[in-house]
């Protein structure tokens, strides 16, 4: 036992740590519900999933150990790679537009020239708290090819109707529109919070020195907002690969798998084919890719600083 203890940690450290914990036991007791729930519903599934990724398991019955078989299938899985490509395409379709609009709206609202600031902030945030299933159905009805409101207006104005959900690229654009509509307010509120930490004097001084508002925006606001923009960028990156409800309701992944994301693919493998082992392997591959992408984004940001 003694030998094992010394392997775990220096002997002197454990008692002092224990003393520390004991001293503030009530604080630990009060924060423990989160950690207990996280351990049961977060950590345990995550760890089990690692084990599952090395097995063949149908959700019922014994788990057969399969070694690296699941991972060896992934390079040939065209649907999974298509879903990754879709994630990248969606990212470029909506993230730049959404973040730019969010920042621009935040700056305008923050400028102090907008009357009814709270009203507009609530209005822009409202879609975020709207139920996505309801919103998705509303979009589907609006974008419907024959009699959808948007195409009816298009035809009335003299344009030919757009196959919003029938064409690979238009379906992706439709999806981007839904996402921007739903998530713009959320990103704007975060940007707004970030803007309020930037002293107003900086911009005012620049304006006094003769900079135009646009110059001040790009040379003062944007650089100071970089950490906030990075946060929005990373959450949006992860978000665009993990879209689920938006897609299930609006496009169902079609046409020809053009709008499925890795998350939809993993769900399909797990609950469509009951291949929980392979689905876990896909999930961890997906996690590794996202992890690397996030690190790259951090690095790029640091280099620019």
């Amino acid at each position, binding site marked *: 036992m003694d030998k094992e203890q010394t392997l775990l940690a220096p002997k002197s450290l454990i008692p002092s740590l224990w003393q520390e914990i004991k001293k503030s036991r009530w604080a630990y007791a009060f924060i423990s519900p989160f950690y207990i729930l996280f351990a049961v519903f977060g950590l345990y599934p995550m760890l089990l999933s690692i084990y599952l990724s090395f097995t*063949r398991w149908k959700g019922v019955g014994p788990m057969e150990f399969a070694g690296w078989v699941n991972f060896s299938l992934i390079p040939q899985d065209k649907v999974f790679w298509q879903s990754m490509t879709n994630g990248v395409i969606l990212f470029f379709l909506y993230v730049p537009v959404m973040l730019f609009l969010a920042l621009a709206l935040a700056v305008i609202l923050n400028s102090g020239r907008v009357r009814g600031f709270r009203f507009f902030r609530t209005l822009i945030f409202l879609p975020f708290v709207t139920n996505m299933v309801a919103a998705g159905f509303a979009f589907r009805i609006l974008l419907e090819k024959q009699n959808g409101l948007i195409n009816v207006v298009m035809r009335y104005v003299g344009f030919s109707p757009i196959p919003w959900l029938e064409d690979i690229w238009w379906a992706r654009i439709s999806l981007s529109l839904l996402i921007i509509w739903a998530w713009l307010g959320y990103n704007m509120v975060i940007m707004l919070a970030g803007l309020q930490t930037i002293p107003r004097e900086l911009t005012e001084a620049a304006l006094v020195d003769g900079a135009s508002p646009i110059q001040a925006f790009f040379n003062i606001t944007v650089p100071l907002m970089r950490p906030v923009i990075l946060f929005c960028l990373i959450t949006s990156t992860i978000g665009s690969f993990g879209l689920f409800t938006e897609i299930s309701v609006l496009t169902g992944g079609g046409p020809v798998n053009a709008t499925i994301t890795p998350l939809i693919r993993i769900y399909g493998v797990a609950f469509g084919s009951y*291949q929980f082992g392979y689905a876990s392997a896909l999930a961890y591959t997906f996690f590794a890719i996202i992890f690397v992408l996030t690190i790259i984004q951090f690095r790029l940001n640091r280099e620019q600083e």
Partner: protein
Amino acid sequence: MSKNSVYKIMAVLMLAILVLSACGQSPTADTPAQPAAPAAVDSPAQPAAPDAPAAKPSGKLVIWAQAANQDVWEQTVLEGFKAEYPDIEIEFVNYSPPEVANQVGLAIQGGTGVPDLAVTEYRSITALVELGGLMDMTTFMEPYKSDMNAAMLAYCSKDGKTYCAPWDIGPVVTFYRRDIFEAAGLASDPDSVSALVATYDDYLATCKTIKAETGLNCFALNKANNYGTMLENMLWQQGLGYYDETGKVTIDAPYVVAAMEKLGAFWQADVVSDSLEWTDPWYAEMNASIDNQDTPPVASIVIAAWMGNFLKSWIAADQAGNWGVAQMPAYTAGGVRASNQGGSAYFIPEGSKNPDAAKAFIEYVNLNVDNQVAQFVYSDYFPASQATYSAPFFLEPDPYFGGQVTRTVFAESAQNIPFGYIYGQYAVTMSGNAATALQNYALGNMSAEQALKEAANAVRLETGLP
């Protein structure tokens, strides 16, 4: 700080690990408290205990089913059941059909929380039958087997044992618009229309006539998001499908390529509309009058019998008297003119706390011919029980369909449904990939052969099937 405290920490950790890892074990190991439950019911080891028949089942009966099923029971047979079994207390939980299967699967795995009885679609049940965890109902179902639709009962069976009790099935027929056929100069009585659509080639020729004479589309066949239901019909009616009796994936077999190309001829002839099933334009096309310029109607739809109720109740109520029912096209001349779409069955998960009450419910509600007919009258859920087909109700004319006796057409299709290799453990994956192949082919991205080859490979990779 004593060693004692370290032991305590370690003990807590060990306990936590034990508790957590226990959740991952198989349900049999996890529920020692009720190991006898599955065996007690259906096992031939307990041949009708002498004192058994006296006691009627009682207690709580938790049923998982979609809300529409519950409505059918409440409106027709539930009062009678309660009178017969006053001591059974029913509790309904509503899920959509795929969700019933998902939740039951999760509950079986978790070893707790299964319902006592559930109803869902064959497409989902077949996966549970294959995976295990459903109660063996072989002995219970034995007296009723010969009466049940054989093809659909096969989906309840594995290795000679029966795991579900068929309720309704979806015999496929051709619904057609009498007024449009007449406007195209064609005969519009059911027998003549059955002859006009005798095969898919005949159907195509008829569609061309309708388009030429009236400018109207023959039916809806979406390209970009097609679900592949027509393709499934074409395979099912030949007794074929996405896999074969050895379990081999056949999505790229020549007969699937041929069926897809046969369907493709309807696009090439430009006789179909592009509306997607179960969307507003699709409904509108079936409810539009013949002279509606904004939404031109379609002349027909090949779909299961349950569509009759949908047409009259909410999709095409305006067109009462204009719709008729004919047989579906055969794949080749003289071939089978029957296929299946959907349908559902009852099953009892292992671990059901009240299997006796569950069986009493199935017996009273589903296996009693009069009660089954009562449900059919109310809901148009076409029964899998063939004894119901001789009920007088089947010969009654239907005013919505211009006074036609439609149920005999449904029954004829029902009795000819072959076993199709469509539903099964991997039904969702197979039909999903086949639908993607059909979309690729329809949009001109790939040849039918190439698209199906890709789909088959994707299915093989995902399922590990040969």
